[in-house]
């Protein structure tokens, strides 16, 4: 009986720890998915920004569990893995988090179209910012087309990502 109570308590503690790590873990998974080589022509250039989706989702629903430091570290990891100048993704995601955090109350407990509209504006802004940043870094006017494709792909895949993240969140984080 006592043993049962102890195991239950331990299990709950483990569950809680898992739930608290969920935002960081899912964002890291998003990093890995977004650098996967897919056998689709031209995919690498327009690979959707899955990491941005995860950062957006968790900043709205559990901002405390995805603090700026972890956003920064995840961003730097992605930069180092993809060969982009380190700091670029970190900067974009930090800024995205800060902006979403400020506007958070417009999205929490709102129907999905609101959340999606918010993400559309965020990813549009993020892609534009990235493009401008690379133009500055490379001192060249970079072709804008793949940026547009990437933004469109990212925005259209957001509902699926949001659904998956929401499901995981609900199943692992029963209590708010």
């Amino acid at each position, binding site marked *: 009986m006592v043993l049962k109570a102890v195991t239950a308590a331990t299990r709950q503690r483990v569950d809680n720890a898992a739930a608290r790590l969920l935002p960081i873990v899912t964002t890291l998974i998003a990093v890995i998915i977004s650098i*996967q*080589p897919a*056998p689709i022509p031209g995919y*690498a250039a327009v*690979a959707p920004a899955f990491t941005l989706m995860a950062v957006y989702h968790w900043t709205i629903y559990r901002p405390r569990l995805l603090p700026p430091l972890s956003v920064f570290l995840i961003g730097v990891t992605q930069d180092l893995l993809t060969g982009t100048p*380190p700091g670029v993704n970190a900067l974009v995601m930090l800024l995205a988090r800060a902006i979403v955090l400020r506007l958070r109350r417009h999205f929490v407990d709102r129907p999905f179209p609101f959340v999606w509209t918010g993400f559309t504006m965020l990813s549009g802004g993020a892609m534009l910012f990235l493009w401008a940043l690379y133009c500055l870094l490379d*001192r*060249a006017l970079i072709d804008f087309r793949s940026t547009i494709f990437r933004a469109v792909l990212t925005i259209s895949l957001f509902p699926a990502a949001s659904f998956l993240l929401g499901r995981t969140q609900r199943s692992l984080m029963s209590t708010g």
Partner: protein
Amino acid sequence: MIRLSSLRRTSLQRVTFPLLVLLSVTMILLGKADQVMLESLRIAVADAAAPVLEILSRPLSALADLATRARRLVSVYQDNDRLAEENERLIGWQHAALKLASENSQLRELLKLTPEPAATYLTARVVANSGGAYVRSVMVYAGSENGVARGQAAVTGDGLVGRVSEVGSRAARVLLVTDLNSRVPVIVEGSQQRALLAGDNSERPYLRYLDTGAAIRIGDRIVTSGQGGVFPPGLPVGVVASLDGGAPRVEPYVELSRVGYLRIVDYGLADALPKPVPIVPRGGRRGERSADGQQSRR
């Protein structure tokens, strides 16, 4: 764990955000200035992550293989007919090639030509792409432990993919010919025009430093010239796809974004590249370094 009061936590968060933003910006600027430090950092992360990425990329590639198989199943009869016909034609070519090869070796013998060093191959799996429009490179799961070295050519059966730009013990990064930083000395086959194949992050790199009077036609084959000593001469690169004014665009033979396996080729030329990336004052554009690692003419 120390429990912070909510007030202290908020004030701490207020400081961390600008600090981290500042750190990001500093890293971007530092990374642009000091390539050597950046490279070793990137290699360390790649070495650590490559085994994990290799395992994680397996299901996706298995799925892709399955799709390819299903597609092939549909066209198996037509393919068979086509291949049988092609085989017949190729046997003719084989006879011709064997005859030419023996003739060639006899002539070389007569001229006392020093034989070219034999190339050694190594097949490596692509475990990560660059995910984005601004860098064109892939990470492969093979490193110095397997004999990969900076400057080696990465090819597939179809042609040139790029060159090894960074090497760790287990992983390496291959800079694709489409990257903004890629410069490959090439020859336009037929006219023997020399040029530099320069990437600009689009799907089709373009030819630079072509003679103004050069007669280039769409469909001309582009192969490496071997100048600069990084690539051996004669590696197929692509075909001229559009003339685009003075800068013809080249469609690479290899579908670069779909490459799942690469062959890293050691032609014994790897020493042609200077070992660490030289720190050059960034006077010009980021893309001004030529394939042999030297500052190119403007």
